[in-house]
């Protein structure tokens, strides 16, 4: 038990340092890190957190989170822009944000309801088809996007965000606040009666059903909540990037988000932002490295890193962390089961 409390203390200290660094970020780091790497970490971390929430507490690994985040981005883009491609509705930014979140959450509800009677590997496959179909939809339907996508969305962001190009620190803080709120929300949901029932559904669906809980309903509602979270990431993304096109939510994007979640660890929410940070840093600083013998671009390196992680430590970096503390506690033996299967989330 002493080791457990030491671990908890260490984690709290690390979390405090991370928060302090994040809050004072614009005064410490240069503009590239603030505007590019850290803001992107916060918003991709939110999307990854929606994936990890479903996986850790619902036992559902969803590949549709990028599609949902894209739907929010496209919805917002169609509603706010006043020129260019898409519907060009030119609506009030605030109204559009609310509607974009509502639309995405509704789509998430429908997606979730359709796949709610499937679990495990079937769920992964079904959500992958959602993702690819959404990608084709926005590629084909020129009314709402078409191949080249929608641009100039950042120019129509509410004034407290402003255009990213002019002052990146505003969006930085918005993304940080949303990330912290999302983290707090998902941690809170875990302890509510709904969250507890969801974890029951994850471990023992048959037993929960015989206790009178509706298994499909819990899965659907969890998926809807995750869609809501993903929509926040999508809105931050279009403010940050200014434009969105079908390629953003293609297979590459879908797999990148999965890599982020697996890198951070599918068992713990914190892993979302840890994974996003490492992924973005690798992506930025390994771009020009060429592998000897096999050749290829940095994507080969990303793939190899991903392969190494799923082969060596399926719980990702946060799993390695837990395992290291397990070693200290037991003086040798690691955890019995990977957190991917059991989904146990440790205290932060």
């Amino acid at each position: 038990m002493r080791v457990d409390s030491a671990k908890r203390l260490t984690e709290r200290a690390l979390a405090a340092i991370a928060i302090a660094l994040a809050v004072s970020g614009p005064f410490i780091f240069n503009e590239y890190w603030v505007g590019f790497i850290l803001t992107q970490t916060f918003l991709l971390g939110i999307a990854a957190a929606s994936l990890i929430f479903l996986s850790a507490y619902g036992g559902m690994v969803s590949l549709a989170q990028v599609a949902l985040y894209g739907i929010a981005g496209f919805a917002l883009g169609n509603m706010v822009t006043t020129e260019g491609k898409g519907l060009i509705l030119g609506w009030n930014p605030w109204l559009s944000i609310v509607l974009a979140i509502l639309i995405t959450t509704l789509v998430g509800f429908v997606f979730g309801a359709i796949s709610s009677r499937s679990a495990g590997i079937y769920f992964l496959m079904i959500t992958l088809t959602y993702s690819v179909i959404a990608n084709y939809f926005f590629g084909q339907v020129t009314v709402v996007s078409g191949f080249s996508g929608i641009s100039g969305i950042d120019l129509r962001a509410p004034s407290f965000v402003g255009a990213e190009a002019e002052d990146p620190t505003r969006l930085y803080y918005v993304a940080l606040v949303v990330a912290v709120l999302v983290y707090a929300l998902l941690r809170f949901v875990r302890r509510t009666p709904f969250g507890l029932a969801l974890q029951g559904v994850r471990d023992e669906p048959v037993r929960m059903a015989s206790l009178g809980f509706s298994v499909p309903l819990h899965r659907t509602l969890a998926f809807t909540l995750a869609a809501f979270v993903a929509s926040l990431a999508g809105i931050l993304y279009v403010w940050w990037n200014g434009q969105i096109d079908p390629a953003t939510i293609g297979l590459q994007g879908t797999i990148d988000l999965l890599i982020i979640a697996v890198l951070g660890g599918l068992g713990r929410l914190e892993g979302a932002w840890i994974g996003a940070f490492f992924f973005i840093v690798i992506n930025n600083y390994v771009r020009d490295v060429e592998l000897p013998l096999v050749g290829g671009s940095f994507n080969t390196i990303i793939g190899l890193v991903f392969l190494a992680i799923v082969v060596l430590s399926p719980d990702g970096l946060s799993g390695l962390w837990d395992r290291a503390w397990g070693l200290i506690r037991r003086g040798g033996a690691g955890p019995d089961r990977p957190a991917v299967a059991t989904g146990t989330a440790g205290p932060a």
Partner: protein
Amino acid sequence: MTGTLHRPLQLAARGLLVGGIAFVLLYVLVIADPSPDIGGNWRTTTFGSAFDDWQSFARTLLNGLTFAGLLFIVASGFSLIFGLMRVVNMAHGSFFLVGGYLAYEVQQEMTGAEGGFGILGEEVNTWEWVLPALVAAGVIAVVGLGVQQVFLRWNQGQELRQALITIAISVIVADQVIAHFNGGIASSVTWPGWSNRLISLPLLGFDYSLARLVVLTLGVSVGVALWTWLYRTRTGMVIRAGVDDRQMTSALGINIQLTFAIAFLVGSALAAVGGVVGASQGSVAAGQDGQWLLNSLVVVIIGGLGSLLGAVAGSLLYGLVFSFSAVYLPTTGDNCCTQYSIVFTFILLALVLAFRPQGLFGRAG
């Protein structure tokens, strides 16, 4: 779903389903109208109904069937591997892609058209198509076997981890294809000269691509061969036993690992053959790995994972819906409605999952 309250809801849902299917069939068969010179309404389509223009209808039907033939070749391999080993091979699309490119390289080498723009059909004889296909199938079969032995043999039962591993492999392959195969640009394998032409179909009275009929024939042959193998040989019997109960089969003294290896060899080879056919029919290009992974997923989710009959049914349904939705949606204006054809793939998937979560021919659990 057996509660008393659910009963009327369920009946209503089934009624809606049957009504919807009936409407779609009626629309295609009689309701649709050919385009007038100006304007149009919800009945206006490119060709009109089957009643108005039955030749176009028959052509669309044939297009759907030939696409289904290709779908079946690729998806049956995916389904075979899943049915026996519960491995979702997310690298199946990558095997398809590399298979197509390998055949392209070999054919370029054989016909001496290295780096050329394209080969004319007359320059290719049957052998110069079959050998590249065999090379591609052989190489990919061995690659698939290697992947299974190195990455998937020691973690059996950890379905998610295996899926993640094959996703990692597909990420690496996708990048390596761009580095080593023609820069990942669209590349075509050329059909042998005799098939690269139109023939007039008896009874139907229009010309149709012979190559497309070859694809259909190949699809049917693969289906018949797989059925014979699975239901009329000893190896097939062992595979079916393994699908039913893996532990019991190995307890009977059967080397189940050998069976797994064979299934992975055959499944990967089928992906490669599909890639060669796909590259001959159109072309292969970087990014198609994802497209064909989706195609395989849709077919097996509709048909039911691990079922040969399911793969047939899934391929036919998906192929026909794909082909008809592209042509038989109303064309009332610039923005409506043929661009929405992709939605029908989703509707098909959603309907099957809503009424039979395990797929049409899949077993529950």
